[in-house]
C-alpha cells in the first residue's frame, strides 16, 4: 500500500506546505513589496521631473524621456531581495524541530533544502511582477518592447536566487533566523553603492569605484539597457553574467552548508 513517493511528489508536498505558510502570513510579505513600490513612486516623483520626462533635452536626460523606465530596475532589484526568505524558512524549520522530523522520515535531504528555495523563487517572481505591473501602470515602456519586461523579470529571478542562496548559507551557518535575516543587511550596500539614481558616469570618484565592484551595478545596468536604450548586447550579457556568478557562488555555499545541516553530528 505504501510506496516511497518520488522525489517530485516529496518536493511538491514540502513546497505546498511552505506556500500555505506564506499565504497564512500575508502581512509578512508586505514590507518588501511596500519598500519596492515606495522606491518606484518616490524616486519617480522626486527625481523624474529633474532627470527625465519634462527635463528632456537638458544634459541630464539619460532616461530618454521616460524616468520610470530608468528607475524601475532599482525597484525590481529591491523586490528580488525577497528571495532571502528562503533561508528564513529553512532556519525556522531547524529551530522549531520540523527539520528533524523530516530527517527521521525517508525523505530526500535535497528536497528539504530545495523546497524553501523554490518558494523563495516564487516570491521573487510574484513581487517583481507586481512591481513591474505598477511600473507599467505609471508609464514604464521598455525600449525593446514588451519582451523587455520578461528580460528584466528573468534577471530579477537569477538575482533573487543569489540572495536566496546567501540567506540559506548565512542562516544555516549561524543556526538562527537572525542569521538568515542578516541577509537583508546586504540590501543597503547592494542597492546604494550602485548607479541607483544616475548612470555610473555621473557618480563621484569613490562611489564609482565601489559601484564597479558591486554586481548589482551590472544587473541594474543590464535591466536599464533594455528599458531605456534597446538591445545593447554586451551590457545585457554582463548583467546575466554578474547575476549568474553571484547566484552560482551563493548556491554553492548554500549547498555546502545545507549538507552540513543535514549531516548527522
Amino acid at each position, binding site marked *: 500500500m505504501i510506496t516511497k513517493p518520488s522525489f517530485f511528489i*516529496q518536493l511538491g*508536498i*514540502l513546497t505546498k506546505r511552505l506556500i500555505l505558510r506564506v499565504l497564512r502570513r500575508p502581512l509578512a510579505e508586505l514590507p518588501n513589496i511596500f519598500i519596492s513600490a515606495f522606491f518606484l513612486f518616490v524616486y519617480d516623483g522626486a527625481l523624474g521631473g529633474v532627470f527625465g520626462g519634462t527635463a528632456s533635452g537638458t544634459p541630464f536626460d539619460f532616461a530618454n524621456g521616460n524616468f520610470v523606465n530608468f528607475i524601475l530596475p532599482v525597484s525590481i532589484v529591491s523586490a528580488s531581495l525577497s528571495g532571502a526568505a528562503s533561508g528564513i524558512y529553512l532556519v525556522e524549520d531547524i529551530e*522549531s524541530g*520540523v527539520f528533524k522530523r523530516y530527517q527521521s*522520515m525517508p525523505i530526500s535531504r535535497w528536497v528539504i533544502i530545495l523546497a524553501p528555495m523554490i518558494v523563495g523563487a516564487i516570491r521573487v517572481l510574484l513581487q517583481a511582477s507586481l512591481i513591474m505591473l505598477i511600473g507599467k501602470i505609471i508609464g514604464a515602456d521598455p525600449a525593446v518592447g514588451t519582451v523587455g519586461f520578461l528580460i528584466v523579470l528573468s534577471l530579477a529571478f537569477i538575482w533573487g536566487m543569489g540572495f536566496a542562496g546567501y540567506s540559506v548559507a548565512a542562516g544555516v551557518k549561524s543556526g538562527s533566523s537572525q542569521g538568515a535575516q542578516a541577509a537583508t543587511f546586504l540590501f543597503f550596500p547592494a542597492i546604494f553603492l550602485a548607479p541607483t539614481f544616475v548612470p555610473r558616469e555621473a557618480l563621484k570618484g569613490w562611489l564609482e569605484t565601489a559601484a564597479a565592484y558591486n554586481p548589482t551595478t551590472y544587473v541594474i545596468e543590464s535591466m536599464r539597457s533594455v528599458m531605456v536604450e534597446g538591445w545593447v548586447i554586451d551590457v545585457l550579457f554582463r548583467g546575466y553574467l554578474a547575476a549568474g556568478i553571484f547566484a552560482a557562488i551563493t548556491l554553492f555555499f548554500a549547498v555546502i552548508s545545507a549538507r552540513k545541516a543535514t549531516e548527522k553530528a
Partner: protein
Amino acid sequence: MLAVEVKNIKKTFKTKKDTVEAVKDVSFSVEKGEIFGLLGPNGAGKSTTILMLTTLLRITDGEATILGSDVATEDKSVREKIGVALQDTGIDNILTGRELFFSTARLWGYSTKDSETRTNELLELVGLTEAADRRVKTYSGGMKRRLDLGLSLVNSPEILFLDEPTTGLDPGSRRVLWDEIKRLRDRGVTVILTTQYLEEADELADRIAIIDEGLVVAEGTSDQLKASIGGDVITFSFSNKLDLENAKKILNDCKQEGNDLRITVQDGAGKIPSFVNELTANNIEIEAVSASKPTLDDVFLKVTGYRLEGSETSTKSEEVFGENQ
C-alpha cells in the same frame, strides 16, 4: 528477532570549548511488543540515546540494531520501520492538524485517497477530530503531545520511540496518553519511551532501564528492580537530632534522609515492634514509623545514591548547589 538491541553505545559531543560524553555506555534490548522505559534525570543522556537509535545522530562507538537492521549502516530501512516523537516537538504551528496528518501521510507514500483515510483514522485515535481544522498554534500542550504521537504513527511503525511523551502534562492528560500508548502496545507496537517520572515508568513500562550520567545503572521489570532492594523499607522519623544520632548507632545499615532513617529488611511490618522496643529501651523518642514495599524511588536511590523526585532533602541538585531548597 529482538525489536531493539543496543550494545555499548557511546556518544561524545565535541564543542569548541570541551568534549561532552553525553552517553558513556548504554546497552539494553527490547522484545517485540513491549513498552520499554528509559528512566533518568535531566541530562542523563535519554534524548541523545533516542536520537542515535532513530538515526538522527551518529553513534560514536558501539552498535545498535532495530529489527535486525543496523542503525549506522542501514539507516534508510531503519527509518521505514520506526516512528519518532522527539522531545522538542517539531510541529508546524501555522498548519492545521488535518493538514499535518495529510501531508505526513503523503510523504510516507500513501496515495491521496489513502492519506485522507489515514488522517481521519489517526485524528480519531488521538482524539483530535474536533480540533482537526484548527491551526496547531491554538492547541493546548496536551493536544500537541497527542498530535505528535499521532504523527509518529502515520507509517504504522512496528517500533515507536517517544522521548518524554508526557513531560509538562497534567495528571489527567498524562493518563490519557498512557492509555493510548498501552493500546498501541496491545496492538503489537513496540514502544521505547523515556521519562523522568518514576510513576510513569512504574505504570507504563513492561521493563525499565535506569540511566544516569550516560550509563545504564539498572535494568529489569519494575518488580525485579524493587525486589533487588532485598526486602521492605522501614522508615523512622525523629523530632530531634540527638535521637536521630543515637538511633543511627542502634539501627545497623540504615540510611539517613533528613530527619528520617531507613532500613531495608525482610518482612518489614513484622519487625517494627522489635525495633521500636529496642529504640525506646534506649530512651530514643520516635515520632513516626512505617513499613512499605520498596518503590522505584528506593531503587533509584540505591543505584545512583540520590533520589529522582519526592524527598526534597536528598535530591541531587541540592548536593550540587548546596543551599538550593
